């Protein structure tokens, strides 16, 4: 392993600009003559718009334009789309209501877009917006997904607010497993609604060049090509060749910046409309109101065991809140990203899942770090832990007894796990967590009047999303390959153009490590180009832990072509047969001789083209590739959380957190560990403190950092993070992906630890101090008390 090759913890190249304040985020971009957009948002969760009078706003100082849904309709712009078709049990397609860019006739959640004011300064736009008079006809709201059916009808297209009633698995076989079960464990749970909260709020700058009739949109996107595709092909803003989308430095996404939103659509459209650049930057409360939220499931789940403790069946019914509109990939999250993982790490012969997706008068809900897989892992790992406890089995050994040990393994819910070593991760986690020492630590806590518990989570996820034909057969509107282009310059430096997008994932370093490894050149001679549709031809972007497994595989494939071409050039220069050329550590040699030429010299020779016939071998050294994965990848691991609870205050302290994950081959362990840390923190946030709350009128009451509790440094411990390795067989680099694992694994580990400490299962997420205090009052009394 070289110092900057695969497997080395190379310090990040991108850090220098970020630690010196030279990052370039969308809000740092200003265009000459730029105007500022302010969105007038609905104060009501559900209302008809009877009249909008914007005359006073239009006459306000500095105002260039005021636009409403009518202007969008007059320009025949399409609505925002949901790109994954789900069919109900009865075969009918999902029932999606229209999602206009600016509201037309009706608003459906607090924060819905009623009008946009564009002015010379943001203050002027904001002041003018206060002068817009809107007559609303207020309608009843419904925020709770369990009350959506039978609630006020939100979209005419979706009777009973039902988008689909979907199912997966074999109902008859599952019912039979339950009928013959020796023990059944049942669980009702709510997977709490979360707000992603990347620290950089969303932003957009639309810029129109009337000379070339071209729109440039700077936007906080995880997938700028997908944004361009949707805005071109479905919304009809401009054809792709007249439309450039740039996602520069992006300050975190966690899923929320995958989607195509109203605000960037309006900035791009309005820039052409008023022939002036238009900029919008979300403030934090707008982000709470209008970024797509995550999770929000109400679930009943059951697991069946035989007398020997073997899991024989699992059945689940989930109501999934879609919010007021179907966001870009919303429909796929509680279906193919959720129920397909309900087998967990276990050999379960029969599984049946039903999912009812409903509209409510709340912000749209879509993928948030993990997207469906944290919800699945919470169901499975809570049930397994409870089943072990109810049947008097050790939770670690009960898991081990049911682990899948033979690979490949076909689950009853579509997925075919390719490889894994679940017991290996468990053993290592038990050792790191000092599980044997737990009874003594529990006794020590009890002596102080505290409650201590440990909880397991043996999670699995499907990443490397995904084989295009497979997702196409399941309803996806796109293919999920990735592209790469390798441009070798005449002096031997390299530019990698990738359709992946880094918004914290470290691609400028990790992708350069692959090039360094393969071509034997310094990472300083490699630059990674991403996030610009004019530079990179096409790409599908970064989400679902796919940039390594899919994006880097595309680069690897393009590097194969570079190496093959360079060997031909080297053969001409060294006057040897191509088949006698070997390439290692950046040098081409002729087998069995001391004749050699380095990579940079071959690059130069490829461009000067003096040593070969340009009709037989094309000059230049530039290759591209598309990689379409052959399977999902299956990162998995075992996390163990240990908590101490003060029963007098309800405060939960995470005392130890151990994660042992199998991500396949690691590119940069430092970066991998960092991804795991961040994911765990978000999962602990979900388990202990985060939760979006709408009141009965549909008002979001957690719309600032004073009301929505974010994990802070003093609410978390340092983590013990380690890995095991089974190389992924479905991509050339053997990697599985690590971006979401922490957020998928940790919520059940934390809740299992709390319930272990409490001695009962009655606690919901988030386990806030008041909730834990109440739960602690209900615990079985200890003999000493």
């Amino acid at each position, binding site marked *: 392993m070289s110092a900057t090759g695969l497997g080395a913890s190379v*310090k*990040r190249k*991108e*850090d*220098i*600009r*970020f*630690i*010196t*304040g*030279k*990052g*370039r*985020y969308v*809000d*740092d971009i*200003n265009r000459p003559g730029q105007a500022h957009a302010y969105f007038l948002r609905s104060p009501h969760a559900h209302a008809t718009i009877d009249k909008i009078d914007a005359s006073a706003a239009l006459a306000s100082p500095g105002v260039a334009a005021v636009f409403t849904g009518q202007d969008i309709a007059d320009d025949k712009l399409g609505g925002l789309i949901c790109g994954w078709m789900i069919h109900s049990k009865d075969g009918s397609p999902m029932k999606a209501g229209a999602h206009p860019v600016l509201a037309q006739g009706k608003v459906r959640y607090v924060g819905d877009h009623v009008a946009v004011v564009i002015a010379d300064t943001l*203050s002027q736009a904001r002041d003018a917006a206060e002068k817009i008079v809107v007559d609303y006809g207020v309608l009843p709201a419904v925020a709770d997904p369990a009350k959506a059916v039978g609630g006020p009808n939100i979209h005419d297209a979706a009777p009973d607010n039902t988008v689909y009633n979907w199912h997966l698995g074999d109902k008859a076989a599952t019912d039979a497993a339950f009928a013959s079960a020796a023990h059944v464990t049942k669980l009702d749970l709510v997977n709490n609604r979360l707000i992603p*909260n*990347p*620290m*950089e*709020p969303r932003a957009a700058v639309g810029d129109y060049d009337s000379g070339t009739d071209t729109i440039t949109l700077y936007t906080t996107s995880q997938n700028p090509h997908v944004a361009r595709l949707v805005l071109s092909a479905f919304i009809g803003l401009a054809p792709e060749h007249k439309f450039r989308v740039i996602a520069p*430095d*992006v*300050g*975190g996404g*966690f899923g929320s910046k995958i989607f195509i939103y109203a605000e960037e659509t309006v900035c791009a459209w309005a820039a052409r409309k008023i022939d002036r650049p238009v900029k919008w*930057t979300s*403030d*934090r*409360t707008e982000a709470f109101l209008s970024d797509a939220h995550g999770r929000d499931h109400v679930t009943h789940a059951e697991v069946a065991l035989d007398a020997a403790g073997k899991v024989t069946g699992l059945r689940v019914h989930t109501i999934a809140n879609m919010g007021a509109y179907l966001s870009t990939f919303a429909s796929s999250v509680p279906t193919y990203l959720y129920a397909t993982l309900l087998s967990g790490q276990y050999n379960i012969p029969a599984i049946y899942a039903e999912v009812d997706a409903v509209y409510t008068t709340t912000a749209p809900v879509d993928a948030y770090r993990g997207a469906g897989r944290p919800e699945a892992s919470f169901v499975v790992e809570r049930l397994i832990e409870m089943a072990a406890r109810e049947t008097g089995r050790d939770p670690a050994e009960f898991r081990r007894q049911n682990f899948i040990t033979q690979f490949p393994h076909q689950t009853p819910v579509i997925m075919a796990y390719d490889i894994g070593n679940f017991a290996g991760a468990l053993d290592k986690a038990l050792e790191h967590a000092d599980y044997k020492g737990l009874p003594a630590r529990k006794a020590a806590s009890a002596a102080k009047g505290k409650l201590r518990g440990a909880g397991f989570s043996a999670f699995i996820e499907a990443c490397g999303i995904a084989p295009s034909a497979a997702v196409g057969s399941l309803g996806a509107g796109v293919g999920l390959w990735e592209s790469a282009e390798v441009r070798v310059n005449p002096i031997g430096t390299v530019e990698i153009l990738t359709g992946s997008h880094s*918004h*914290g*994932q*470290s691609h400028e370093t990790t992708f350069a490590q692959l090039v360094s490894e393969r071509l034997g050149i310094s990472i300083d001679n490699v630059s990674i180009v991403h996030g610009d549709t004019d530079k990179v031809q096409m790409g599908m972007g970064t989400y679902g832990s796919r940039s390594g497994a899919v994006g880097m595989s595309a680069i690897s494939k393009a590097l194969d072509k570079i190496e093959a071409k360079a060997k031909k050039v080297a053969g001409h220069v060294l006057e040897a047969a191509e088949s006698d050329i070997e390439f290692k550590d950046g040098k081409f040699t002729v087998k069995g001789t001391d004749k050699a030429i380095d990579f940079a010299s071959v690059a130069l020779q490829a461009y000067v083209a003096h040593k070969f016939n340009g009709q037989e071998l094309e000059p230049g050294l530039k290759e591209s590739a598309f990689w379409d994965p052959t399977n999902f990848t299956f990162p998995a691991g075992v996390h163990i959380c240990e908590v101490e609870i003060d029963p007098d205050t309800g405060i939960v302290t995470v005392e130890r957190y151990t994660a042992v994950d199998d991500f396949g081959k690691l590119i940069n362990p*430092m*970066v991998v*560990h*960092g*991804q795991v*840390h*961040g*994911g*765990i*923190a*978000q999962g602990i946030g979900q388990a202990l403190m985060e939760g979006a709350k709408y009141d009965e009128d549909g008002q979001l009451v957690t719309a*600032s*950092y*004073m009301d929505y509790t*974010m*994990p*802070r*440094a*003093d609410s*978390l411990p*340092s*983590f013990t993070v380690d890995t095991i390795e089974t190389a992924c067989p479905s991509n050339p680099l053997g990697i599985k992906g690590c971006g979401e694992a*922490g957020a998928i694994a940790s919520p059940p580990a934390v809740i299992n630890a709390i319930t272990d400490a409490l001695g009962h299962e009655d606690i919901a997420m988030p386990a806030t101090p008041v909730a834990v205090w109440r739960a602690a009052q209900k615990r079985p009394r200890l003999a000493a008390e």
Partner: protein
Amino acid sequence: MVQVAMTVNGKAVSANVDSRTLLVQFLRENLRLTGTHVGCDTSQCGACVVHVDGKAIKSCTTLAVACEGASVTTIEGLAHGTKLHPMQQAFQDNHGLQCGFCTPGMIMTAVDLVNRKGNALDEATIRHELEGNICRCTGYHNIVKSIAQGAREMATQPQAAE
């Protein structure tokens, strides 16, 4: 409009601004010092932390006119040329950042923390003192390590007075 003058990163600056202009707007929009970020507008997240007369403040809730005559240091003023401040170096060494958006505020807060609490900082102190800074990427694990290293190295490398 009102005239405001101050020293930013050692340079005298002045401008005619709307009286409601916040310090962060003055830095970002008038001076084009875009390293200082706005993450929440409500003094909760700390992405906007700069030093005013040597003390950390949140520039998203400070009026520019309130800094008349003050000496302001932003993230752009921390390094000496190409030589990184030890706290900046520590963040790179320990992978204390991912997306980089909270990072300028974290580093400015960390330097202030060392100025107030000294160079030997335990984990509990660092975690407690970060109560005004939110990071969504790192889980704080590597930020805590970065600050501990940066604090130690600030003792051995003399810093210019702000």
